[in-house]
């Protein structure tokens, strides 16, 4: 009987142990929250630069395919685009374009080891079309005023996943567009 009366100290001590551990755990958890946010920012950054790399690749394609860009029929791209949907671009209504390209970053940069693993988890997909008019229609060429230069738009999406497994539902996708003209025109 006297044992149980004195028994309050032990459960109290155990309670204090739990409370103190929880207090420490709270501190750790808010710190880990910030660390995680930094990681997400890191992935966003690389996805953005993946999209920019897509635009550069689009420009390179245009330089070597100027003939394809003058008036040959355009194709409906929506079926072929894996993750860079035309719906990401609010100013574009049509789905016709000249070409598309898709690469994982480790395919366009020569890297090895850790870096190779990381870059293989980012990719871009781009497509090139006439720049749309004010209603979003891009079935015909629009020229820069006072010149003979046609406005083309390179639409590019960067993804934080490899090129074959990137899905807009699961991955973070950064969408960019760049309006360019050909200096040869």
């Amino acid at each position: 009987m006297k044992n149980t009366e004195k028994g309050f100290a032990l459960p109290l001590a155990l309670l204090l142990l739990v409370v103190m551990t929880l207090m420490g755990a709270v501190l750790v958890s808010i710190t880990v929250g910030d660390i995680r946010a930094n990681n997400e920012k890191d992935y966003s950054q690389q996805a953005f630069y993946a999209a920019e790399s897509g635009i550069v690749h689009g420009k390179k394609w245009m330089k070597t395919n100027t003939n394809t860009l003058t008036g040959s029929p355009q194709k409906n791209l929506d079926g072929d685009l894996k993750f860079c949907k035309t719906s990401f671009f609010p100013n574009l209504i049509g789905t016709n374009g000249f070409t598309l390209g898709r690469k994982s970053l480790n395919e366009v940069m020569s890297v090895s080891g850790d870096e190779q693993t990381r870059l293989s988890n980012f990719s871009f997909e781009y497509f090139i079309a006439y720049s749309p008019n004010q209603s979003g229609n891009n079935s015909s060429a629009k020229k820069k005023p006072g010149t003979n230069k046609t406005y083309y738009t390179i639409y590019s999406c960067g993804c934080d996943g490899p090129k074959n497994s990137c899905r807009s539902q699961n991955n973070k996708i950064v969408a960019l567009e760049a309006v360019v003209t050909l200096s040869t025109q």
Partner: protein
Amino acid sequence: MKRKNLGFTLTETLVAIVIGMISVVAAFSAYNFYNKSYASVSQKVAISKSAREALSMIVRDLRNSGYLDPNFIGSSAEGISSWDSAQQKLIEIESKYFGNYRQGDRLNIWYTISPKDRKRITYKLKKYQNSSKDYYLSRDVKINPEGGNTSHPIVEELFVPYVEDFQVILKDKDGNILGAVCHACGAMERSYGGNKIINGKRKGHTNMLEVHTAEIYLTVRSPKEVYSKARKTKIQNGESPHGSNITINPGDKYHRETFFVSVHTRNLATPQVKIASSGQSIGVGTGYNK
């Protein structure tokens, strides 16, 4: 024999009291240590989060600054009818005027979001209503600012709590500071010739198309006090005279951090690319913001 059953011995009591006192002191100092740790860590998390969100937003706006949709002239809701007129509003700063120390900058950025509509984004330090010294960095958005009937009200879309300093330094493609990039030129910009007319155009306007790089300094303060002893603080951001030199005296107990980022403004001074020319970029992000 019966006496022993009823009570404790003197030794027992003394030992119990000593153990009890040690426990109390230990508990008290543990609690104190924890309190200080919690204050320090939670305040730093707040600073880290504010700065990350603010700078991500600022970088995105700077990348878009000056973008003009090819269809904008002719269908603009603001009635802008010439490229010249559109190019008078691309990016501007007013330096050394805002914030608690009167040294913060205001940044205005314009870019089109559709063939018809243009957004103006203003970053500047504003005072909290219930305080005399606490400022926050606000991001105000106005769609079609010149549009009269078609313009929308100003919406404060983001604010960054407890910002001590916000500095913007714009440089040209040779890495030299542009002292006057403005449409409505402030005192400092006027001293750099912002209102001077050269070849029929105001220097403040022609400089907008020279902007190649934007550098941003952001100093954020902890919402609550962190240190136990007051300390005087000096904040020096940027390159004199285009920057800040702030001394906080008498000291206080807040924690401060300064963040720096530098962005290439892709739609303004275009790089000397000789190939597929006139590149203009706009960022329309989905999920890009953190």
